[in-house]
């Protein structure tokens, strides 16, 4: 046991030392290649082998996930089926709660991987040096805007911010077409949304701040508050409430509509702001990053490979109704392709830098 601890310590020490050496930003093998410990059987340090995926991997793989467990469990189960000798340990929580844990644990890293619900968090953490670069072979197939320039994180799936509605409560001619319709007094008290602690909502506000500016975003949020929008902690509450007819409209990620529809509720969906001069559809990506100081780098990298593989992407598309980033993976039946919509274009790196201002705005308005 003490030998194990000693080797772990040595390993961490080497990693820390290598972290300090200036590494060229693009080639991931440079910072990790130095960590070659001789004769260590307990700790998988043979990082030279990580470039080849077929190398047998084992040990514990610790995943911190900002995505809720039901949305990430299927892909973990599929990975376990492929690599039964890897023990996957999952810690799921709210996006920023996990992010805070990662910041606190910098000196004593526990997690190997971080999976997140939106890019601003992962970008912000990346700027704080929480991650180590890794570029899976499949990365070349993904749209380049969803890969960190330094390979610190890799996008996995896309989600759209949509309005879902209860078909019993809203007549077709009354349907809103823009998120700005949500401030119309005729919807007073009839709208549900996720509150200020929700990553996707935070990301939407950050995106709007960048696209429209502070004033217009504030006016929109104030409009929601004046319209007595009910803010829940998460989107599952929103979709269930709309499905049950408690609310006419809900501001959600698109797959919550599909999940509610699959439960047999009478719900419909609107992809908003498609008209001329309108904002366009706001989207955001989920992402994964390998944590700097990870104990099981080979397994972490294998897991990233799996997430961006066709098999992994299919699970996200099939079970979660998400938009896979890997081209050629079919959408789940009923999911409208993103190509048919005009998307709002957001600069992720800039929005991440502005995240404090987003929180300031939510706080100023006392968004629940």
């Amino acid at each position, binding site marked *: 046991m003490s030998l194990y*601890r000693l080797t772990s310590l040595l390993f961490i020490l080497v990693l820390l030392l290598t972290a300090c050496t200036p590494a060229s930003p693009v080639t991931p093998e440079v910072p990790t290649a130095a960590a070659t410990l001789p004769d260590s059987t307990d700790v998988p340090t043979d990082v030279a082998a990580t470039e080849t995926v077929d190398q047998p991997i084992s040990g514990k793989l*610790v*995943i*911190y996930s900002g995505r*809720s*467990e*039901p949305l990430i*469990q299927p892909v973990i189960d599929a990975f376990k089926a492929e690599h039964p000798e890897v*023990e*996957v*340990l*999952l*810690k*799921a*929580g*709210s*996006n*920023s*709660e996990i*992010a*805070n*844990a990662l*910041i*606190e*644990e910098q*000196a*004593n890293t*526990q*997690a190997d991987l971080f999976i997140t619900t939106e890019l601003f968090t992962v970008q*912000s953490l990346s700027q*704080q040096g929480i991650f180590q670069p890794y570029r899976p072979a499949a990365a070349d197939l993904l749209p380049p805007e969803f890969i960190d320039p330094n390979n610190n994180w890799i996008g996995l799936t896309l989600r759209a911010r949509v309005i879902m509605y209860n078909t019993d409560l809203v007549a077709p001619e009354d349907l809103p077409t823009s998120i700005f319709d949500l401030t119309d007094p005729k919807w007073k008290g009839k709208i549900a949304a996720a509150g*200020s*602690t929700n990553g996707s909502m*935070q990301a939407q506000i950050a995106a709007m701040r960048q696209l429209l500016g502070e004033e217009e975003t504030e006016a929109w949020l104030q409009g929601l508050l004046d319209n007595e929008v009910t803010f829940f*902690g*998460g989107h*599952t*509450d929103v*979709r*269930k*409430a709309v499905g*049950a*007819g*408690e609310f006419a409209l809900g501001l959600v990620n698109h797959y919550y509509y599909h999940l509610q529809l699959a439960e047999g509720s009478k719900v419909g969906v609107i992809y908003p702001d498609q008209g001329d001069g309108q904002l366009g559809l706001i989207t955001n990506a989920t992402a994964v990053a390998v944590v700097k100081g990870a104990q099981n780098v080979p397994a972490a990298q294998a897991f990233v490979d799996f997430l961006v593989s066709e098999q992994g992407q299919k699970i996200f598309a099939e079970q979660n109704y998400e938009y896979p980033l890997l081209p050629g993976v079919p959408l789940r039946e009923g999911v409208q392709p993103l190509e048919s919509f005009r998307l709002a274009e957001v600069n992720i790196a800039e929005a991440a830098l502005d*995240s*404090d201002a987003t*929180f300031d705005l*939510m*706080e100023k308005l*006392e968004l*629940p």
Partner: protein
Amino acid sequence: MNRSDAPMPPALVSPLQRLRAASNRLTTRSASPVLLAGLAGLVALFLAVPVVYIFLRAVGADAEAWQRLLQVRLWKLLGNTLLLMLAVTGGALVIGASMAWLTERSDLPGRKYFRWMFALPLAIPAYIGGIVHLALLRPRGGMLPRLLENLLGQPVYTPSPLGFWGAAFILILFTFPYVYLLSGAAFRSQHASLEEAARMLGYRPLRTFFSVTLPAMRPGLLAGALLVALDILAEYGTVALLRYETFSSAIFVQLSGRYDRSAAAVLSGVLVGLAVIILWAELHSQGQARFTQMESSWRPAPIVRLGKWRIPALLVAAGVTFTSLLVPVGVLTTWSIQAVLDPETLRSVLHSGSMGFSNFAWNSLWTSFLAALLAITLSVPVALFSVRHPSRVSRLIARVCQVGYAIPGVVIALSLVLLVNRALPFLYATPLIVVIAYVLRHVPQAVRASEAALNQVSATLEEAARVSGRTAVQTFVQVTFPLILPGLLAGGALVFLTSLKELPATLLLRPAGFDTLAVRVWVWANDGFYIQAAPAALLLVLISAVPLSFLLRREQIFK
């Protein structure tokens, strides 16, 4: 309640007081409390760590964070928090003490069963009760409004469980057992001669109750009220669920937001300050009064006949039990059956997270048990020192040991993350750190219980043992310990149960793949999968019921 507005029959008070004063003089002279003081001081030091950290962080926060919060939010949060705290403490005191009186001092039909019914809501975390009541009563979408609408053909107004009233309602329902247990024990152990003396002095029953019975119960009632008040200060799940913003939920919002913790630290600092004020007030209200009993002449106080009030009292008691126990357990059972009958739900219940169902049940058990054991052990020197050697120092130590309970679990967790990460990195991300958080957070309950137990044991018994040649340690082992054991076990039961229910600290500190029942319930319920959460919630209640029954039986209240 102050001593001056609770007049005791003078003939009764002064001998007791003189006795106490004499015994205090004796103890302080005969037994040197240096070792005890050192032990108690160490315990206080250990418990003070998170508080010190929070104050350092709050003081270290930049002026901007303070200013931003001081403008509006702080005052609003202060008002919200205090209002809820007062309402829930008052409600829990009234319900807890009156139910205790009904089961211990009246001939309420079925009071043997009601004792269990009133203690068992302790096994239900308030937020689980909140989830159930929310599912039932939710405006428009709740089961009850829908049922009524279907029956009557039109929407019917039902009270909403959201907001202040809802939060107060739910929290009273699930915190009154604290008061019930502590005041129940006090009613039970009350000396018959106390009331007899009052009656002989010509006091009518009602006056006897308010001027003798109730004041003599003050330690028990205050202990219960303090636990409830501090519980409300730290409560997160219920207020977040029912959308009523207090300090704790605001801190959580801060933590789930920006990566800068200074605002959360500022709020926590104010919250801890609030708790210190409550403890200070409590210290002063306790005054000089001490109530001791002589073991040799103890007789139970007589039972009061309810007469024509039997039926109304029974209805009230049944109503309390219905809303606080039968409804949550009934709904959870129904949901559990639904979960078991649906193969897909059942599969996800049994194989969720990284481990199986039995794994997190076991984790809940052993961490809570270890925490209870440690908490009682740590509480004994503190209680001994503060009760048997009352002084400024001992009182300060006892108060320091209380403050930890008022710090939200999330803040204890954060301070542990930071400190353990730096000082004891090998301890971090082990289940032991979860246990440490439980201990830090729940030792105050154990200290309260141990103090209350010691307060009920006359120091003259220990004096007798010392005079007859026993050492201080022998005296403790042979005389004091057996007498306070029921109280210690009651404290242990409380720590065990609150640890079992603990959520925010467990969520933040648990190593990956280490789940407890409470965590599983939260993860599922948070995702809106109430039916999936139900079996774990029900098991949590059942597991809690077993040691609860064991401990309560040993305490002789529940025979």
